[in-house]
């Protein structure tokens, strides 16, 4: 870190500025010359010098700093031209820039003015132990928009800070499970049996429907490979099945 009075001190300080306008205003304020008579032209030179210095030591600059630098370079080139339409345009732009700096200066002034006020919680204090003489009416709700916003942002923050919450998937009867169960039960059944008799116990309707679907799939698979036969007498009627090893009995 070079000493504060080195030529680079301002450059190194760049990160402390809240954007190009902030830097411009600071340059204007730290002029040795009378603030009333400072010229935009001189200010532009200083700004460009600072930005050039900053880029030379490879300090990363935000894009809007460089946009402002380019714009100021344009402004300077126009102001240096002999009289003409372009100069008028540039003077107008310079006036606008000066007005914006004055606005920002006013805002700074208000911030300083506010800081100088006797501030609650810093210079002056309210009653530390306010009395709640109010047991009578607690029916109302104290709700305010900042509270709602804080709650929302806090909820989203919490989610962002943890792994996404995934509810446990319900344990659904897989086709593989159904194949195993069908193969096991097939031999013990004497004749055509309703497919539903092969279902495992299910706690919820969702689980039951899942098991029905996977058992049907398993039944179809086994019918295709010839280990069982399927039969349904009418649309949406009960689906019957039986093992093929009994075919010889018929």
């Amino acid at each position: 870190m070079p000493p504060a009075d080195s030529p680079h001190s301002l450059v190194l300080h760049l990160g402390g500025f809240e954007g190009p306008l902030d830097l411009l205003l600071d340059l204007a304020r730290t002029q040795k010359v009378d603030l009333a008579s400072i010229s935009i032209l001189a200010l532009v030179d200083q700004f460009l010098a600072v930005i050039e210095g900053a880029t030379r030591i490879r300090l990363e600059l935000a894009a809007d700093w460089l946009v402002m630098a380019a714009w100021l370079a344009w402004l300077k080139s126009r102001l240096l031209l002999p009289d003409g339409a372009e100069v008028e345009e540039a003077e107008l732009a310079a006036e606008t820039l000066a007005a914006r700096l004055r606005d920002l200066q006013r805002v700074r002034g208000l911030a300083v003015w506010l800081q100088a006020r006797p501030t609650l919680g810093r210079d002056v204090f309210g009653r530390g132990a306010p009395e709640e003489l109010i047991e009578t009416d607690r029916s109302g709700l104290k709700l305010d928009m900042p509270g709602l916003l804080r709650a929302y942002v806090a909820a989203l923050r919490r989610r962002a800070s943890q792994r996404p919450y995934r509810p446990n998937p319900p344990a659904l009867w897989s086709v593989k499970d159904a194949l195993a169960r069908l193969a096991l039960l097939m031999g013990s059944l004497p004749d055509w049996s309703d497919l539903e008799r092969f279902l495992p116990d299910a706690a919820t309707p969702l689980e039951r429907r899942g098991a029905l679907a996977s058992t049907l799939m398993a039944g179809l698979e086994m019918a295709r490979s010839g280990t069982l036969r399927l039969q349904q007498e009418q649309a949406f009627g009960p689906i019957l099945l039986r093992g093929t090893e009994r075919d010889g009995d018929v």
Partner: protein
Amino acid sequence: MSDADDADLRLAEALIFASAEPVKPSALIQALSEAADTDAIMAALQRRYEGRGVELVQVAGGWQFRTAPDLASRLTRVILAPRRLPRAAMETLAIIAWHQPITRPEIEEIRGAAISQTTMDQLLEAGLVTPRGRKDTPGRPTLWVTTAAFLAQFNLSDLRDLPRRDDLLAGLALAIAPPPETG
């Protein structure tokens, strides 16, 4: 009373006024000037408040200001102490407000935490949310929305008056992008 004593008296007065807990004599001695006669100062301060709307009393081994007991009955009528919603209820309300209509599992997913029945009951009792219809997914979970009372509580004429999520979350948007799948 000397000027020095008066300065200490003012300081003791301010300190006891601003403290959340009764101020212990040891804390007073530490705060006041070294030469101060703490007992005399507290006696003088207590006399000052005698018969006033506020009195200086010794409680729990310390000094505290209290409103005069004879005024209690007239004061209680005036001060309302509306409840605040607990944090979990406030977060649930906020999520319903921005994401309605929304099911309870979806709220839990956004909060990243489960919602107790108490929390939902608090919102229902306050009339801030209400069920409206069911979602057409397995189990047909109830959908929740905010009520007109919600709008009135927050002084909104319309749900569109809620600040946009983007305005709230400029910096947060990246942070809540889903983490890359692992494994």
